[in-house]
C-alpha cells in the first residue's frame, strides 16, 4: 500500500487536530478499546515536529477522546 492508501484504511492517522480527532473517534467508537497507544515518532520526524504533535494531541485531541463513552462487549 502507498502512503495515501495506508491512511485510507486508517492504519495511519495524519492531520490537523480536527482531522485526527475525527478519525480516532471513528476508530474508538468501532473498536471500543480501553487503551489507544499512539505510535507518534517515526524516523523522519524532527524533535520539534514531535513536540508540536504531542502538544496538539494533549491539548486538543485527547480531551475530545476522553469524552467518548465506551460500550460494553457483547
Amino acid at each position, binding site marked *: 500500500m502507498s502512503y495515501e492508501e495506508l491512511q485510507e484504511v486508517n492504519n495511519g492517522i495524519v492531520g490537523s487536530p480536527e482531522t485526527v480527532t475525527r478519525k480516532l473517534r471513528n476508530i474508538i467508537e468501532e*473498536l471500543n478499546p480501553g487503551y489507544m497507544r499512539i505510535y507518534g515518532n517515526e524516523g523522519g520526524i524532527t524533535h520539534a515536529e514531535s513536540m508540536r504533535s504531542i502538544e496538539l494531541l494533549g491539548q486538543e485531541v485527547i480531551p475530545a477522546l476522553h469524552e467518548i463513552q465506551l460500550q460494553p*462487549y457483547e
Partner: protein
Amino acid sequence: MKDTVEVFWFSEQPYSYITDQDVEKYDSGRLWFPNSHFDPEKAHVLYNEYHEQYAFADEMGFDGIMTNEHHASYWCMKPAVNLDAAVIAKVTKNVKIAILGNVIAVNDPIRMAEEIAMLDCYSNGRIISGFVRGTAVESLVGGIIPAENRSRFEEAHDLIIKCWTEPGPFRFEGKHYQYRAINPWVKPVQQPHPPIWFPGLSSAESVVWAASHQHPYMNLGSLLDHTQFLKSVYIDTAKETGFQPGPEHFGYLLRVLCADTDEKAQEIGRHSCGPKTTVTVDRWNTMIRQGTNHGRPSRFSARCRAPAASASG
C-alpha cells in the same frame, strides 16, 4: 467496566540517520546490518530528545507512555526496556508506564521480577508489566533455541508472578529454570502485582493465550478488520474461560501524526515515510503483512474469511 479510553504515547526511538540506501546492500536490516553505522554521539542527542518528549507527553495530559524493546534494530534503540522505563519513571509524574514488554523467554525471570518491582517502587505503582515473546531475532540474539520460546515464556511468566505473590525464600525446579533459593527483596507497590498486558501483532494464538490468562491484549497496529476479528477471538475465549471482557481488556496501536493544519501534517508525514528516512512505507507494509498473514488456530479460521467491516475515516 472501563468507560473511557486512555491514550498512551509511544516511540520506537529510532536511530534516525539510517537510509534505505544504507540498508538495501544487506539481506536484512537487523542481524546482518553492521553496527558500524551506529554513532554514540548522535545516539546521545537522540536519546535525550526522546526523554524530553516523554516528559512533555506527561505534562500535556497523556494517560500513559508505552515503551518496548528490540535488539539488533536501527529503528529501535532500546535493547533494555526496563532502563527506558526507569527514565520514564523519573522524568514523569502522572502517566502510567506500559512496558511492552520484557522478552522474558530470553532473560533471567528472577531478575525480571526484581527489576519490574524496582520500577513499580520508583514510580509508586505506575507500572504495567507487559510480557512479550519477542520476534525471531530476539530469540536468536538471546541465544535460546527459538522452538523453545513459548515454553520458556510460559514458565518464566508463572515464575515471575510467583516471585511477586509468594513469600520467599522458596525453591523452584522447572523445565527451563532451576533455583535452589528465590528470595527477591524488592516487591512491587501494586498488589498482588502490577497489571500484566500481552501484546501481539496479529496471531490469534496469542490472543487466546492472553484471554485464557485474563490478561488484557494489546494489538500492535493490524488492519482494522483483522483487529476486529482478534477482538472477537478474545471475547469468545474470555467467556469460555469464565469472565466477561470489556474495554479494559483490549488496546490498539496506531501511527498518529498531528500538526497545525492538514497540509502541514501531510507534508511532515510524507517526508517522514519517504525513501530516504529511517522508517519507510515499506516497513509499514511489512508490519501489516506480518499482521495479516500470521497463523491462526483452526477453530477460528472460518471467521477469518469474513472479517468485520472497517471503520471509515
